[in-house]
């Protein structure tokens, strides 16, 4: 009971508060600004979906929050408060005490995140025995129960299996069971279903949702697929070039997209509800170089709405209205200003605007677009 009231009282204050988090990797060519000033809050029991393309910094962000980026060339600054406790600057020895017990992660590739020469049973009991101080027999009972709870048939037998004896979906279930073993408060799922088939993906996502409900867990789900988080996350943050460009409740985001990147991302995805041969609205260009990112808005060079201001002045992630919808854009879509800006860019024959309007084909190399016109 005491624990229940404790959880209730904490529900009003955010469990995780991230403030101006930056993760830079030092490489010979300069600093790769993989995460460049990200702030968000997450309440207990909620799911945050972080969406972005490769190189947007979504995985690095989740790893930085958990303190997994520990190489010598990594520079993490800013603040991550977990339950009021500052995690940035903690020694690895201290932060290791949180892993598994408070925070756990499910990785993308279930083929490589398990040790191929160790039976899954031992991989499951190893950290349980260390963190929870169970003996061998107790740990085994717990592990078999966990295998059962992630719906693996014949858990007693599977306990003795090596990873190669299982299918990809089964292995991801084992990885989830391992992550859940010490009863973490927060589960990070980094592209948990990207390597899996669509029917298996559906089952794994359902399993994660079920476990989250049962354990009142907080979850951060990182994915490149808007479809994966649309119906399953409470809030969605869209990342581009190391920054959150838009963040809102899932329903709020889809009903009222304000950032041109979010809109373009959704429009570029083929959907089963569209007729065949529907022309996709592709985004021209490619994500910026994170060592020398462009001045101003990072999306401006690809944005069909961009104006002078966008290339000079970086927009901030501001909350607009009271619904908690935030976006970082000078000319948010769905406004008169954006309509005018788009018309103006079309008139000026700006290649990305022409491509967005479907008048020319979108390409990665914007200089080619310039030539053909």
């Amino acid at each position, binding site marked *: 009971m005491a624990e229940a009231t404790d959880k209730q009282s904490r529900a009003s204050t955010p469990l995780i508060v991230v403030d101006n988090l930056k993760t830079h990797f030092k490489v010979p060519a300069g600093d790769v600004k993989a995460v460049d000033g990200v702030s968000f809050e997450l309440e207990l029991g909620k799911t945050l979906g972080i969406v972005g*393309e*490769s190189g947007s910094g979504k995985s690095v962000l989740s790893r930085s929050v958990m303190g997994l980026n520990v190489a010598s060339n990594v520079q993490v600054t800013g603040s991550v408060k977990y339950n009021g406790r500052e995690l940035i600057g903690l020694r690895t020895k201290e932060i290791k005490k949180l892993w598994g017990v408070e925070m756990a992660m499910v990785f993308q590739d279930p083929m490589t995140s398990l040790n191929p020469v160790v039976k899954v049973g031992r991989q499951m009991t190893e950290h349980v025995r260390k963190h929870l101080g169970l003996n061998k027999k107790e740990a085994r009972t717990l592990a078999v129960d966990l295998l059962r709870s992630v*719906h*693996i*048939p014949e858990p007693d037998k599977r306990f003795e299996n090596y990873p190669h004896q*299982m*299918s*990809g979906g*089964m292995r991801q*279930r084992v990885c989830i069971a391992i992550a859940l073993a010490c009863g973490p408060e927060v589960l990070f799922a980094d592209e948990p279903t990207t390597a899996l*088939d*669509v*029917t*298996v*993906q*559906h*089952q794994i*996502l*359902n*399993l994660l*949702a*079920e476990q989250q409900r049962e354990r009142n867990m907080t979850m951060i789900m990182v994915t*490149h*697929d*808007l*479809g*994966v988080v*649309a*119906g*399953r996350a409470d809030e969605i943050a869209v990342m581009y070039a190391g920054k959150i460009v838009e963040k809102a409740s*899932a*329903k709020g985001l*889809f009903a009222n997209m304000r950032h041109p990147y979010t809109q*373009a*991302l959704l429009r*570029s*995805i*083929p*959907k*089963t*509800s*569209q*007729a*065949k*041969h*529907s*022309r*996709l*609205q*592709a*985004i*021209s260009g*490619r994500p910026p170089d994170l060592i020398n990112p462009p001045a101003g808005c990072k999306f401006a060079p690809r944005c069909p709405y961009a104006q002078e201001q966008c290339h000079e002045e970086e927009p901030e992630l501001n909350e607009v209205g009271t619904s908690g919808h935030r976006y970082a854009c000078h000319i948010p879509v769905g406004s008169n200003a954006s309509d005018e800006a788009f018309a103006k860019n079309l008139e000026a024959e700006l290649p990305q605007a022409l491509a967005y309007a479907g008048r020319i*084909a*979108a*390409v*990665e*190399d914007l200089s*080619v677009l310039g*030539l053909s016109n």
Partner: protein
Amino acid sequence: MAGSGTAHLRETAEVLLQVEGLVVEFPAPGGESVKAVSGISFDIARGETLGLVGESGCGKSTTGRAILQLPPPTGGRVQLESVDLTTLAPDNLRARRTDMQMIFQDPISSLNPRRAIGEIVAEPLAVWGPEGKDEQWAIVSSMLEAVGVDPASARYKHPHEFSGGQCQRISIARALVMQPQLIICDEPVSALDVSVQAQILNLLEDLKVQYGLTLLFIAHDLAVVKNISDRVGVMYLGKLCETSESDELYARPAHPYTALLLESVPEPDPTIEIDETVVEMGELPSPLDPPSGCRFRTRCLYAQDRCAEEEPQMRKISEEHYVACHFPLIDVPGQ
């Protein structure tokens, strides 16, 4: 699923490729064999795009390769313009291959990292094309331009200097320089980010019109397949379950497996209710020893005794829609 039969094959002059009873088996230890593809039949009309969709291990890539005779299939016929490729002498087959090109999944590893783009794209021409280097370059540069790569700056660059999407464009240019009739695209966009994926899908649509191409598009992403295909074939464990015109298939799936696939697709729309029941999951049946009768019966909600005893044959639902199932979700007329 999993049926056989050829009722869905068309007998018109426009058919460019006809595959009949294609079987591909690979030897496995202990005298067993992996039954990767077990008697599938389909055809593609000239100028048409056929999508092949299914989960990993269903044999869709093996089918694509068997059409190119890489390796030659264990059984069945592959007819390109009424010429049976499986019986051609090696020299004739080699000449015939210029009509069929392939685009692979991983754009970076499918280009030789030590050669310049100009050489990579010109390679097929060095064997079959005009002899003069200048004439070859003229073809190569027009092709690079067609796929949205600047020929002058790309000519002496190497693959590592390009992004995945750019490399895929270069692979497409390489496939196009022979002016093939048929292009087999094996998961050409699954390694790409969504914004680049849209560019490549649009590009393939444009090139198809421009060069009068016929495509076999193999992919696991149902939305991608629908977007690009005129017709779609659904595969499961080496068999073809259902084939139909695309819009019809997605609106009215007749095979329980097709329906399961479609229900599993995560739609980017938060207002759609998700069926969140968690089921215990068994392993996919082994292709070494596939289930008797209908191969999907072990996972099928509608399976009856008959499904284990008798293999379903392709039956006609409408002019464009065929299904191999004893208990399809849509009534088969006249039965």
